[in-house]
């Protein structure tokens, strides 16, 4: 009665014209995004994270827990769990892929770059560094969905800010 869903795949609805399955130019629902949503490689519970933080969009119910394993200033592992819309989950998966094996400073730079892209201020050259995440560029045109795309990155930013601050404090000792 109240929307409990058990159905998975339905016959008959996939006979849509091919072009309708792929999005109009500027859409955020690209093949890459749909792939990351359907098969998120980085959506699992990490065994021994050094950092964990929860990010929530209260108005949509997007809720992810991001975990990092940072060793000697390198993000050796990034993973997340939680639930949310395709945009929030795919964006988090793309992000985890991008920052894995990167130094903390590089992860921070990419994070800032992503936010710059969302504000519509990144150059084409800068966008190249973001790889698949650059496909979310047009989210800038959908203000209602910006916070979905940003969720993973905002959560990462909080962790990195803490991590960098802790490192700085250690060096100063």
């Amino acid at each position, binding site marked *: *009665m*109240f*929307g*409990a*869903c*058990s*159905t*998975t*795949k*339905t016959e008959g*609805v*996939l006979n*849509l014209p091919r072009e*309708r*399955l792929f*999005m*109009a130019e500027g*859409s*955020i*629902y690209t093949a890459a995004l*749909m792939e990351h*949503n*359907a098969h998120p490689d980085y959506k699992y519970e990490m065994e021994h994270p050094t950092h964990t933080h929860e990010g929530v969009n209260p*108005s*949509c*119910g997007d809720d992810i827990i991001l975990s990092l394993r940072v060793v000697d200033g390198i993000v050796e592992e990034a993973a997340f769990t939680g639930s*949310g*819309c*395709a*945009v929030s989950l795919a964006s988090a998966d793309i992000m985890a892929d991008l920052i894995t094996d990167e130094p903390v400073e590089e992860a921070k730079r990419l994070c800032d770059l992503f936010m710059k892209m969302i504000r519509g201020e990144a150059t084409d050259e800068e966008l190249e560094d973001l790889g698949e995440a650059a496909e979310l560029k047009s989210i800038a045109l*959908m203000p*209602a*969905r910006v916070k*979905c795309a940003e969720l993973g990155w905002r959560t990462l930013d909080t962790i990195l800010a803490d991590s960098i601050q802790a490192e700085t404090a250690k060096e100063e000792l």
Partner: protein
Amino acid sequence: MAETRPILHGADMLTERGRAEWDAASVQVSALVDNPYKKDFPLLATKPSLAFLDSAATAQRPAVVLDAQRDFYESMNANALRGLYKLSVEATKAINASRAHVARFLGLTDADACDIVFCRNASEALNIVAASYGASVLGAGDEVCITIMEHHSNLIPWQQVCERTGAKLVYMYVGEDGMLTEEEMRAKIGPQTKIVSAAHVSNVLGVENNIKLLASIAHEYGATMVVDGAQSVPHLQVNVRDLDVDFFAFSAHKAFGPLGIGVLWGRHELLDAMPPFLTGGEMIDSVTEQEAVWAPVPEKFEAGTQDAAGIYALDAALNYMENVGYDAIQMRESALVHTCMHRLSELDFVRIIGPEDPALHHGVISFNVCGIHPHDVSSILDMDNVAIRAGHHCAQPLLTHLGIESCCRASLAFYNDSSDIDKLINGLEHVWGMFHD
């Protein structure tokens, strides 16, 4: 006729109550292909590819309403009430005429126009009742009883006044079918209840609450009955005397009128005894350095310059609705809701929220697409020019009660037709296809 077959097929699933309306609706379904109303609404007329299915959030306005707004500014613009010259007198007359019209619209007479308070929207109207009336009658140990299906606008004002006065906020819950039972009303309303407040029609479930029954139970215990009519006025003829309620609020913008105009009606003796909500210009009789004497109702609740053009345009919106007529409105909406629910039920990846019987949905159909977040559904439908609402619909406690975080909502008005439903169904197949390629 393509629409007729699924209607008759779907009728097998109906309850007795729904069958009569279903039969009546199916007769009218063919009429949904012809739509004499869309042309009256400039936005709909100029965007023929748009399926606007979000009228429960805000309706579209007909040209006569837009013309009225412009006409006010072009022919009678002046500050109403206080000016002693002809223009101001005209503006004042326009407000008074609209006030009287609203009174008649709610089943009252012109003589009751003084109990019609204009404000910004239903939210503000309900805030006036909670803050001015609620705060003056509530104390520790008292209870305010509302339903779990309330829009935040009829929930947070009560949370606030309960916090201030030490009163307790009590909820009446809906059953599995989304309906509020008499048993639940009687379990929650009692001698400690001072105020009962309920949505006439739910903005998520689309169900109509039995306001007459609620009011009679509330009055048994001497409690005051407040009604949020934001979602009922566009679909149901309201008579506040017949419902026997004490306060009734609605928004003009959901009833094809302008944005920014709300209406509060209250029993005269209650409005008269209440302190003002906002204070300032226009709401006083006399002012000294340290004190003021309030103007009589309704001016007491109308501080500052009113949106007279909007009030004048509301008059035009009510005229338009009355010309279309509730009979035509309900016949079309009933046929639209029956068709839409039936076609949604044919998509086995869609789950409808609320009663199965279309006759119980007043223009509102909430649903979820299995495994796909409502925001994705809405964004993808938007690419196909289908406008629906997705989220918690300002009714988070209800969604929590239903065990869901968010849902999609298609809401219909008489200006929709079968092409809008076709676009929604095709769009949902597109959504499903994108996620299951």
